[in-house]
């Protein structure tokens, strides 16, 4: 198995990650406020309003998957599995506590329970899985996702193939948005911290990272468990947004859809994941006629993005339009102008 080469996707580290991320978060808050006002004022159609929570859920899922694919540099295809574990744990908790606890306490607790159970699964699965790399890791996470799904379908207390009913529908746009913000702040902090740099060092060159004293297993596990936790939380939100929770929805296709979001947004870019999660979630609803072609478009997005990333010509074009290049071009133009004036 080959090692990752240096900077595999040309991911550039911004010099000022903090300001950049504050801009992202502020833009997100403004977008949230606008959507909230529009939906309260009744300008938004009922259909669009029903899309608000799924958008938030997909943002959480995409950002947490990006932690693995973009920052750790390992492809996992079992994200939907963690989501389902979290969803079932949280929903079962809510059903049990329905009469006992008020919603304001029950729902955050349910999310915590869902996230923690998913994180525990992350540890259990991570111990064997994280000994592997690349293709093997992808296929084993896929296998775990499928095992989780078939076990849930065969269990009694999860409602089996018919699905789990009776979950209180607690997911609202406001709550979902708060969870999105908490997730983003935590993940952005992780990525920009010492731990985040260690994770990225493992991505860029595992052996060099190990030689520099980075505990590779620990940091891989950390990223894996973090991602599982947030996938679980997103699953709880998902479960409390629907009247019936069925295991069938958390299949391989769901994991691929998440992968498409991450790849389209740019691996290793949190802002990109947010934007593309919004686009990919809303796209099939906005372009109803394209619904049949949705899967085909997803597939093409994956292939074309990878081919473009590998093509040197596209890299040249991209470099031409990067902010730094544009600034340099403007400066050169200005200098040329001044030179003319002096003559």
């Amino acid at each position, binding site marked *: 198995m080959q090692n990752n080469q240096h900077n595999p996707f040309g991911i550039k580290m911004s010099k000022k990650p903090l300001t950049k991320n504050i801009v992202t978060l502020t833009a997100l808050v403004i977008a949230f406020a606008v959507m909230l006002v529009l939906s309260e004022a009744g300008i938004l159609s009922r259909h669009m309003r029903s899309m608000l929570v799924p958008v938030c859920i997909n943002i959480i899922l995409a950002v947490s998957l990006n932690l693995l694919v973009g920052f750790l540099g390992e492809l996992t295809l079992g994200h939907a599995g963690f989501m389902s574990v979290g969803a079932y744990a949280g929903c079962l908790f809510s059903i049990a506590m329905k009469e006992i606890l008020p919603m304001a306490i029950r729902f955050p607790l349910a999310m915590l329970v869902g996230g923690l159970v998913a994180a525990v699964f992350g540890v259990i699965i991570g111990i064997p899985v994280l000994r592997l790399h690349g293709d093997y890791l992808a296929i084993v996470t896929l296998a775990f996702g499928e095992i989780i799904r078939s076990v849930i379908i065969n269990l009694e207390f999860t409602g089996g193939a018919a699905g789990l009913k009776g979950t209180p529908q607690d997911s609202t746009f406001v709550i979902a948005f708060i969870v999105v913000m908490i997730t983003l702040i935590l993940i952005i902090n992780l990525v920009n911290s010492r731990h985040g740099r260690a994770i990225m060092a493992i991505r860029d060159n595992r052996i060099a990272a190990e030689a520099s004293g980075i505990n590779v297993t620990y940091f891989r596990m950390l990223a894996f468990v973090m991602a599982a936790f947030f996938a679980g939380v997103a699953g709880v939100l998902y479960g409390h947004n629907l009247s019936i929770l069925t295991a069938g929805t958390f299949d391989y296709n769901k994991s691929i859809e998440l992968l498409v979001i991450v790849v389209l947004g740019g691996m290793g870019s949190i802002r990109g994941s947010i934007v593309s999660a919004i686009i990919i979630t809303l796209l099939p609803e906005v372009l109803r006629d394209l619904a049949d072609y949705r899967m085909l478009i997803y597939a093409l997005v994956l292939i074309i993005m990878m081919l473009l*990333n590998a093509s040197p010509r596209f890299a040249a074009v991209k470099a031409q339009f990067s902010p730094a290049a544009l600034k340099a071009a403007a400066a050169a133009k200005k200098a040329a102008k001044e030179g003319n004036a002096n003559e």
Partner: protein
Amino acid sequence: MMDFLSTLISGLSLGSIYALIALGYTMVYGIAKMLNFAHGDVIMVGAFAVITSVSMLGLSPVLSILISIVCCVVLGVSIERIAYKPLRKSPPLAVLITAIGVSYFLQSLALLIFGSTQHSFPKIINMPAIELGELTIRGNMLITLVITTAIMAGMSIFINKSKTGKAMRAVSEDRDAAELMGISVNRTITITFAIGSALAAVAGLFYGTTYGFIGPYTGSMPGIKAFVAAVFGGIGSMPGAMLGGILLGVIENLSKRYISTELSDAIVFAVLIIVLMVKPTGLLGKKINEKV
């Protein structure tokens, strides 16, 4: 006892189909060092080619099998040319994501063309069941077993004796050194994809005759299971793929019969995980030293 024997025989028949698919996986993995996720979907395309030419165009079975093989070879080679070749020097993650994209592309294309309903597979293998005392062996199972065994024997001879086979082994051992010896790496990889896809077409034919129905997603599950088989036997090793495939088919059928039908897939995946934990190089695989 008879029940056990007949389960075992149908397991062998299923396993030989897995072995055919696993051969394609393992050859591509050994030579191009990539996991061709779309390999399973080539099976589906091959099966649909047979359905179209027999049921819709009314061609003879032999002709339609040939058409299916040609379709798959063309498809496999064009996938390699368009999607994988530009990524020869890219990191493994990029190649893997592209392969998943190709697999998804084939599935959704088949969904658009043939719809989500399951199409019944024409009965092109007509062979009466054989009765040995109390034991009945279905005709198509016997044919599957005989033909796949013949193909596997042929493949072994081809890989070990022919010039192309030697070139393939050389490329899988050391790509750069093989190139220096005058072996065209690109040509060898193309040939590998062509052979793998032809095997997939044959596997698609047998899969169709065994299960009787084909849908757009039919290919992905046997594809993944064949990968499990390839890993089980030791990826990159051809005898390993055959052994792994047959063992996996037997395990799957026995667990379906004696444990639970719904959990049989989970059991197959558990086998993969256990193999990777205990012996990551598989039963017959060589130990790969990680290079710095």
